[in-house]
């Protein structure tokens, strides 16, 4: 009996010793999935017991980015093996972001997380990190160096497809639609709209009769929506590239006594509130903020030798009308991006009323 116990303990210990060191590595969000054909990361596990992570952020210019950074910091604090997290913010200046990455390389951090401000401008600096043997995790927007460790990106076209599919069904495959776009020339807006045109290609009876750029903002969106609705008071549907513009447009319809036609929104708290209060026919495509959090997890998986694919895409399903209550937070402000992994007290500190 005693012998059996000793043997068993011994086997367990041996198993522990030779078993994969990554058994404790955190798991990625299941909404992230490897791109078809993406290779697995092929780096040996770090021999270190604790890690210094560097994060080069392009800016905290809007609440989406603020929340993304907070979620990243929160995740890093959950893992005692991360001894230090160094965050540099380039204030929207890609030139400074190049220097920030170079500075993180000079400090010899164990992994570099990057939320890039340009697809091409950082490539030189990211190649330097690779040459220095530092894993690089690119997330939330793309950069295109030849060598990198992991990418976590969103398919922005999916945001457009989710909205367009909803509209096509709500309109029974027939009708005139106006489009509220984001910032002219912005790649995210272009990709979202590309998704819309892809879907509508299958519905020849749905026509986008006019569009305007509301810069994703409430006030500009309101002006653009007003002028579009004056020109086309009889449209049957509205596609929007962002929730704040949809909020504004719903108010324009109400103020002008027009019927509440189907319109697409976005998964932020302000839009969900309007959706609920006005009883809109809508859908809320999701552009997740938790890239930063997933970036930390990806870095840990790489450093601990746990399996992870090189290229990953996130495509969370859109929020549907009967799911609003699962996401809407009446106790938080309009600027909150729903589905955050942040603890309640932090959310209340950021968005509390």
């Amino acid at each position: 009996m005693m012998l059996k116990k000793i043997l068993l303990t011994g086997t367990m210990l041996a198993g522990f010793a030779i078993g994969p060191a990554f058994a404790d590595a955190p798991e990625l969000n299941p909404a992230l999935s490897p791109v078809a054909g993406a290779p697995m990361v092929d780096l040996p596990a770090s021999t270190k017991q604790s890690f210094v992570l560097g994060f080069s952020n392009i800016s905290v210019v809007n609440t989406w980015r603020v929340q993304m950074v907070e979620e990243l910091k929160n995740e890093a604090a959950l893992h005692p093996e991360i001894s230090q997290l160094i965050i540099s913010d380039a204030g929207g200046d890609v030139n400074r972001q190049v220097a920030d990455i170079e500075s993180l390389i000079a400090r010899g951090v164990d992994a570099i997380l990057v939320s890039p401000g340009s697809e091409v401008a950082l490539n030189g600096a990211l190649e330097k990190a690779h040459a220095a043997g530092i894993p690089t995790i690119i997330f939330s927007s793309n950069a295109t160096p030849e060598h990198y460790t992991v990418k976590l990106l969103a398919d922005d076209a999916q945001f457009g497809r989710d909205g367009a599919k909803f509209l096509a069904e709500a309109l029974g495959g027939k009708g005139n639609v106006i489009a509220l776009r984001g910032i002219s020339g912005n790649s995210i807006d272009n990709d979202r709209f590309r998704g819309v045109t892809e879907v509508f290609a299958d519905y020849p009876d749905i026509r986008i009769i006019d569009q305007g750029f509301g810069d994703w903002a409430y006030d500009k969106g309101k002006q653009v929506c007003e002028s579009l609705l004056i020109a086309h008071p009889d449209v049957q549907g509205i596609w929007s590239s962002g929730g704040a513009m949809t909020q504004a447009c719903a108010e324009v319809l109400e103020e002008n006594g027009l019927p509440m036609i189907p319109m697409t929104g976005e998964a932020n708290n302000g839009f969900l509130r309007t959706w609920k209060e006005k009883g809109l026919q809508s859908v809320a495509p999701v552009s997740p903020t938790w890239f930063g959090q997933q970036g930390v997890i990806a870095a840990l998986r790489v450093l601990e030798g746990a399996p992870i694919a090189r290229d990953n895409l996130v495509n969370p399903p859109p929020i549907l009308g009967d799911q609003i209550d699962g996401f809407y937070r009446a106790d938080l402000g309009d600027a909150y991006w729903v589905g955050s992994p942040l603890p309640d007290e932090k959310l209340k500190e950021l968005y509390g009323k």
Partner: protein
Amino acid sequence: MKLARATTAARLRRLSALPVMVLLAILAIGLGIASPHALSAQNLINILNQQASLILVTVGQTIVVLTAGLDLSVGSVVSLTTAIASHDIPFAVPLAVLAALAVGLVNATGILKFGIHPILMTLSTMTAVQGLALLIRPIPGGTVPDWMRSYAGAELFGLPLPVILTALAVLIAGMAISHSRFGLHLMATGASPQSALLGGVNTGRIILVAYLLSSLFACLGGLNLAARLASGDPLVGAPFGIDSIAATALGGTQLSGGLGGVAGPAAGVLFLALLGNGLNLLNISTYYQMIIKGALLILAVSAHRRNQPGL
């Protein structure tokens, strides 16, 4: 008497760079104590390399400020330059230089011929040139010629080539301002255009040359930036206008004209950069960084002696 005044002016000019130099030294020592990484050779080289473009732009800005002018359009010229240089067309670089000189010419014409205030004139060209840059390259991208990429990565005596050439540009501009007839006329024009005119200085020509040089230096900054980023970006220069003015003032060049030099403003750029870099290394949040920067700018500029005669 005349000689005495000239030497006083020369001393003042040298002194104008003193406060920012002292601040830079204090900051460097403070950061060196607070974080062992701040003063590592690699970190310092990184900062110099990152700031080379802004230093070039600031040299041009200083020349205009010495005439009691101001050039808000430099940022748009930087953007326009990267937009043009990142297109795969023959003579992209000479074309970018010509476009920049055209902006300088328009600025000087508006100010001299139509009597438009430099702030309004360059604000107008800033807006128009920004539009042009967006027209030429609506979204960031493109690529620069191979020689520009090699230039950005080249090293000489262990220092990046862009850093060496920028230092050379500062040196030459500094010499031209303090030791040439042009420099003397520049100061005279800024200190008192009427007296300068009476003294036989062709102030109109000096102002024209100043705005051409400002656009040219902005173009050089833009080319350096395009090489570093290996691409063009229609908005990348936007912060350069305000940043170059802040660095110029911080460097002891009076915005009322006629007093200052380029060494101080170049040190001003490095001060602001080292401050941002150091606060990052110390893990101080971006929000606090902005507050600290604004407060230090006021403090530093008030440390200068102002309202003194230039010549």
